């Protein structure tokens, strides 16, 4: 079944009155308790090393600043292609994530290294622009060679209860992506409740998202473990229902190797080992990579190195 076909079938059914409860409700106390339980897993020795390398392979190295230049993108791309000396056998990162204007530079620097280029689009980070212009932005980024488009949903419409319009915008963006994968940013920090996160996840997946993503990184709180767990559970239900495997990307707020391992534990025990691949899980982060690399060096060599031994992205 093609994705386009999926959004069309669902679109035709979407006006049928479905009570909100049909998409599932979330209990705050229990979801937070469950999310904390994953941090209690003890990941040591060989499992730690394998987990850290897996985390590197899932990283979207990100720079989303007004002062970004091609020069800065070059640093980021080089780091993504080879995060650490080859003797540590660390895989390359999954992608670099940049603004649309910088896509072609990233594409040039990365060449055929296998590292993907992700571009934020649709008037990132607010999404408050006419849809026509947002779609144009998406097409432009895709045309420049972006492999992945990270869009934002219209939170204003969502909170006003205009779910159909949120759905339509995502579906239209998907249509404009061409071959590029679509990641849908819910900006969970603005949706506030777990029930809202759950509903927004459902809307995004039904409208054609290949990935759902927590945050832009511009709003606090960004990714948290309970919010990510709510989204993983929505992905699980969607998989049971449709057979489609949707990816997950927590972004912002994940800074330490220990946190990254806790997220991987949560992923593994919620969606199973099939999701332990960069094709279905990403970390959106900029400072995380060097903490993970530091832990890899410590695990392999047995001692910590100072921060200056790790190149800045």
């Amino acid at each position, binding site marked *: 079944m093609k994705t386009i076909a999926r959004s069309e079938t669902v679109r035709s059914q979407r006006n049928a009155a479905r009570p909100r409860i049909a998409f599932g409700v979330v209990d705050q*106390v229990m979801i937070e308790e469950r999310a904390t339980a994953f941090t209690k897993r003890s*990941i*040591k020795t060989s499992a730690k090393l394998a987990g850290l390398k897996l985390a590197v392979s899932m990283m979207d190295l990100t720079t989303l600043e007004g002062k970004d230049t091609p020069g800065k993108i070059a640093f980021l791309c080089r780091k993504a292609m080879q995060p650490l000396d080859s003797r540590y056998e660390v895989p390359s990162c999954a992608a670099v994530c940049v603004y649309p204007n910088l896509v072609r530079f990233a594409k040039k620097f990365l060449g055929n290294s296998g590292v993907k280029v992700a571009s934020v689009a649709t008037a990132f980070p607010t999404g408050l622009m006419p849809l026509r212009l947002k779609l144009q932005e998406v097409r432009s980024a895709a045309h420049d060679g972006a492999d992945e488009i990270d869009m934002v949903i219209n939170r204003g419409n969502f909170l006003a209860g205009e779910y159909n319009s949120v759905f339509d915008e995502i579906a239209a963006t998907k249509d404009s992506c061409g071959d590029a994968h679509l990641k849908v940013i819910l900006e969970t920090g603005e949706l506030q409740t777990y029930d809202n996160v759950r509903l927004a996840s459902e809307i995004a997946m039904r409208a054609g998202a290949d990935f759902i993503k927590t945050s832009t990184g511009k709003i606090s709180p960004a990714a948290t473990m309970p919010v990510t767990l709510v989204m993983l559970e929505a992905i699980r239900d969607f998989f049971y229902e*449709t057979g489609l495997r949707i990816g997950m990307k927590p972004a912002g707020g994940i800074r330490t190797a220990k946190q990254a391992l806790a997220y991987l534990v949560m992923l593994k025990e919620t969606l199973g*080992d099939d999701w332990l691949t960069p094709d279905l899980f990403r970390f959106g982060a900029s400072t995380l990579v060097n903490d993970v690399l530091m832990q890899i060096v410590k695990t392999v060599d047995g001692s910590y190195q100072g921060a200056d031994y790790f190149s800045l992205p």
Partner: protein
Amino acid sequence: MKRRRTKRKVASRKKLSRVRAVVVREEKTINYRVALPLSQRRLSFGGRWDYAPAPEAHSHFKIKPRYELFIGGKFVRPRSGKYFDSINPATEETLAEIADANARDVDLAVKSARKAHNNVWSKMPGRERGKYLYRIARLIQEKSRELAVLESMDGGKTIKESRDVDLPLVAAHFFYHAGWCDKLQYAFPGRTPRPLGVAGQIIPWNFPLLIAAWKLAPALACGNTCVLKPAETTSITAMHLAEIFQEAELPKGVVNIVTGAGETGRALVEHPNIDKVAFTGSTEVGKRILRAVAGTKKKLTLELGGKAANIIFEDAPIDQAVEGIISGIYFNQGHVCCAGSRLFVQEGVFTPVIRKLRDRIATLRVGNPLDKNTDIGAINSRMQLEKICELVDSGVKQGAKLIQPRLRLPAKGYWYPPSFFTGVTASHRIAQEEIFGPVLSVMTFRTPEEAIERANNTPYGLSAGVWTDKGSKIFKIVNKLRAGVVWANTYNKFDPTSPFGGYKESGFGREGGVHGLAGYLQMS
């Protein structure tokens, strides 16, 4: 037992396909935009990234080769001259020899408790008693890692639970009751409370230290002295608690601990010079104690078996309810009197609940209780394992469908995989009898009235659980359930301030909170 062998075979086949620990990027690309057919919509756990062993270090904690009785503030050899072995259920190795107290030893313990009550403890101002209890609570906190490790080695429970649940609660019970010592006159307005005297307390093997604390802390706070009998398979931590009493300089004889099996317990219950019997354990033994105590002046509280209903409505937060099922029945290997062992699912959500439950139990890790990642430890004893197997066999024979994950159980020790039955009706033995293991019976219902009726259709009445997003429904259902504790949108949560106890054949009397104090006081 036959079923366990086949499980092992399946698991070993799986091991062959297990990949190296190092994660390698996949060679072939999978098109994730293609929907998997229904038959392949399964989650797979294990294979790509497996956790390495993470055992809790224990070599620096010493287990003595032999534990004596604790009478009159000293460790004394039993008059019986007999000892029995305490086994580590995860390895079947003998951990230590435990003294086997006979009626003569029990008599000495009761005499020592009586003397301590008359001469010291009942005369001491509450404020002073409180100081001892606070001191004990702090010492428990200081030694909590050691006690947690010993608890896991002796009883088979996971270090995760003994460290994060049992020990914090043990200390909390002493802290909470320490606070009551000098405030008892305000607990029951208009009445003057006085201690009862000597309490004989018999505790089970599922939460050895925790239930010791449940019994000892309120009794001591109320000015009583105690003779405690731990369960024969789990005596070691009680004796380490005795060392803490010594270290806290608790006056001699205020707490006495006699170890042994059923005969020791009988001698304690039938002893003419005790004022109170407090028992936690099986309904069968509880009934015998009730008969023995009938017609005497002894006060009695019984906390017995259960077959709790955990009720899931259609409008419940389903993923969290599944977590509640897990903590309800697989917590402490299902060795929990208030375990949610009967699951009632509203028919509309039966399929998703079962599917999620099946996937969830596949993530539970069964094995070495001292591994920090273990979710389900060892079954406490061979006898208990046999009882679980017998009841599961009866379920299969009576036509229920058994669901277990594929996993490999350790070769030595007593183990049972997390399991659940579907296709169960109220007439099945597995829906009526307490299994006291990691085995759940799943049934369905259609309306709230039916749920209440089915939930109450049991001789037990210790606990229950309700899952719904609707607050008004919670209050309506909770008030109609005949159970001492009802959890709403959570399960197996304990707190010293909250009374715990049963209806019907789950016993009487409450432990914890103000209600728990009443069981250790006489009022005038």
